[in-house]
């Protein structure tokens, strides 16, 4: 997050959480559990979340699962191409500690060494409820930020 001042950030994030547009970077296990989130049972569109198809329209980048040396270069470029108030949700334990591939020569071990990660969702692959809890946490974080700003 670029260091805008708190009030602007609170206003921007306040508007962002009501309509989050997601660009998902699923090239591994993340996608299997994320399909029900989009489908009718869990239906993330209830909270105004839609999947968009390019980073320029997106607010939240969901990086699902392990990233190899080759794919992390693309993730970094895509992260840079997203317009500013943006967040990254790292899905799956592979992004936290390298997960199953903790000792593989080809995968990266922790996503936040490469791009600033807003929230980690553990699980291999994480269940849809975990994803909703993560989104809920972002909501709370922003509301708390707004309360703080209003409180001053």
């Amino acid at each position, binding site marked *: 997050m670029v260091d805008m001042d708190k009030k602007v950030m609170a*206003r921007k994030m306040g508007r*962002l959480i009501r309509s989050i547009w997601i660009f998902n970077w699923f090239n591994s296990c993340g996608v299997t559990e994320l399909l029900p989130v989009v489908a009718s049972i869990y239906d993330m*569109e209830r909270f105004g979340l839609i999947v968009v*198809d*390019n980073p*320029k*329209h997106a*607010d939240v980048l969901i990086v699902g699962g392990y990233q190899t040396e080759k794919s992390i270069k693309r993730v970094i470029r895509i992260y840079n191409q997203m*317009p500013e108030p943006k967040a990254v949700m790292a899905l799956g334990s592979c992004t936290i500690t390298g997960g199953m591939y903790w000792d593989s020569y080809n995968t990266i071990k922790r996503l936040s060494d490469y791009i600033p990660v807003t929230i980690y969702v553990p699980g291999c692959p994480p269940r849809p409820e975990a994803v909703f809890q993560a989104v809920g946490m972002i909501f709370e974080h922003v509301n708390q930020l707004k309360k703080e700003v209003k409180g001053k």
Partner: protein
Amino acid sequence: MSWENYMPYIYAIFAPFALALFGIIYGLVLKGFDRKLAAHMQWRVGPPLRQPFYDVLKLFEKENIVPKNAVPWIFNSAPIISMGALILALLYLPIGPFNPVLGNYGDLIVLLYILALPGLAMMLGGFSSSSPYSAVGAQREFIMILSYEFPLAIIIFTFAWKYSILYPNLKAFSLLTFVEHPLWQNVGILGFIGLLILLITMLVVTTGEVGRMPFDIADAGTEISGGALLEYTGKNLGLFYLADAVKIVVMGTLIITFFFPYNLSSLLLHYFSLPHYAWLTIDFLFYLLKLFIISFVVVTVMRVAFPRFRVDQVVKFYWGYATLASLIALSLIVLDTVGGV
């Protein structure tokens, strides 16, 4: 220059504000209904009705990126042209019981040209953003314009021809004649079938013009990841989003002026009497209802029922079947007037 001559200028200056407000708000409301109903059709809960308002507010908060080697002034003015043209189109359209603001200062042909501007602006935006994806998207938008203008022109020509026969003293292309004399009564059986075919063709053309699912080859999400509007972010995209919402209202109103210009008040007038402004509000609400039904049929049902067509299938569909249908309808109506009457 007496007071009367200045009337059109005053209309032209103050009416756009009111109409823009109406177009944007009701367009976003329609979009909200569209997403909610589409979700329910897919057995999902769907977003709250005010979701498009949230989307627009968010989009206006995001950074407005202009690509490095894009042409900045075209890139930034494309959404403005698109939105301006649509507000202008609203000026020439009859909104519910009220006659078109600039009704007797511009006819249907002027409206047809104005309606081509949003598509043109999107194409301009796509080509000017120097991205291969959006260049392909803009090229597809160009093909969309080419393909759906053909049946649209035939439909308009049919109506105008019919009016020129029925009411030779009136101006055939003027929207006022379209509103005062709906065709359903003074047309025989053949003509009635012809009008039905025309109605279906017009609905299908509107889906193409609004760029919704079966024909959204221009900003095809999965194929060219965003198409013509790929490089747009922030307020540019927000304005295109608004323009898209207003476009549904404009196209819906066009269908209403052609096929359903009836007002509720004329039917209920002799049952109970109400002050004039009460009738106006009732008619206006009836107009909003008609607009909602048309948007439901044209946008939501088509969006949920059909997958996206290929580019050449779209052209084949419009230049083949839709044109054939409108030509058949034209010949039916000609037969009806020449033979039947």
